[in-house]
């Protein structure tokens, strides 16, 4: 029983440590452009996309192994994505494909 409790406590502590290292970064979408065209995040980080435009946007990537599509993003809303695979991927708005972000995910 003590072992189980110790394991749970250790797990919670470790989980807390992991959570402490997982960061969150925010990117704005304004004027049909991302506020940055390239950025680097750590594996496990969360990237938040803030739609500061007055039109619907989308955030997606077709990078093999890192595909995602966040659907319709209304003006003023936020969507987020956690990146769990290292490498470089192109993130676009599928509605406005000139919106491009080259994202590098590092270990």
């Amino acid at each position, binding site marked *: 029983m003590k072992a189980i409790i110790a394991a749970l406590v250790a797990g919670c502590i470790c989980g807390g440590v992991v959570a402490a290292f997982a960061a969150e970064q925010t990117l704005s979408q304004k004027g049909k452009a991302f506020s940055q065209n390239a950025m680097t995040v750590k594996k496990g980080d969360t990237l938040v996309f803030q739609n500061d435009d007055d039109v619907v946007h989308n955030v997606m990537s077709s990078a093999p192994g890192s595909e995602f599509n966040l659907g319709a993003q209304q003006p003023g809303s936020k969507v987020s994505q956690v990146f769990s695979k290292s490498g470089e991927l192109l993130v676009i708005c599928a509605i*406005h*494909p000139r919106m491009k972000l080259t994202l590098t995910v590092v270990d």
Partner: protein
Amino acid sequence: MHDAQSYRSPTSKAATSRGLCLAAVAGAATVAIATVVTNGLAAPAEKPIMVAIIGAPDPAIMSLKHKYERPTAIPFPRDNPYTATKVDLGKKLFFDTRLSAANVLSCASCHNPAYSWGDGQPRGIGHGMKPLGRRSPSIVNAAYGEIFMWDGRAASLEEQALGPIKTDVEMNLPIDQLIERLNGIPEYGPLFQAAFPREGIAPEAIAKAIATYERTVVSGRAPFDAWLNGNDKAISASAKNGFVLFNTKAHCTACHSGWNFTDDSFHDVGLSDEDIGRGKFLPDVPKMQHAFKTPGLREIARRSPYMHNGSLPTLKAVVDLYDRGGVDRPSRSDDIKPLNLTDQEKTDLVAFLNTLTSDMGPTTIPILPR
């Protein structure tokens, strides 16, 4: 480059003597227009007239003109830079009917220079002379595009190039058979060796060669460009009026922006049609249902019929569609709404669109390898 819902991608946009007065709104990029009675025509002013200096360069028009300056160079991607040998090979491939199963269709069948690099048909014609699902888009200025096909399912010209060749309803030639066929044409070997010494006759080389050639198909300088560059007589007063309308009341620049008159984005413009376009790839994005990529407008007067389904025969019919606002449905773009254009304003818009036709000159058909 055909777009027929067939090839599939894995993933899967003045002040003039005739009476137009321009209101320059201080400190703002927007302009308000008004017409006064001339030639028996009159229309109510949209907003109060503020400035009307006949013959003087108007700062508001100068500001608008700045948005349409042509780029100085053709962009080529880093992973497929320009070489003359690629263009030479790509042009031969583009015009070679042996790239189709029946030896009768080439890329140029649907992208014919005689039709401003389209085919002049409402919908393309594919293998067995069967009609395809959508109109053949022109490849003019494809070098400046972001993603390709009416629904954006090709991420690059290279990705697009092989699609119609292998698609059964289009050119219907599987890529392995294409390679075998090209290997059987002796004069192609040296051309591939010159352009792609490492790859030789390979699918990637074929795609890169065709894409490189397509990037060289760029519209020439049109009367509109001459006017931008200071030749005030290069376009008519009606066309100048149309240019201002295009940027203001008619709201065209919400999508047809920049020197090539496109935002490379996707919009439902309210055309009555069952085709959901981009919506097939973005089923959970309501605004993408019935949405299609905004075509550029260079050479547009020579590219009829119009729209993704070729349903509108003239530019006048297109302007009428936008004036009505199209089908009111949830997916319709927020930029599409009734415009209440007068007949004269519609005429002026068409006059402006006619100034976008350049003299691209004749295209020499290549002597094909045997």
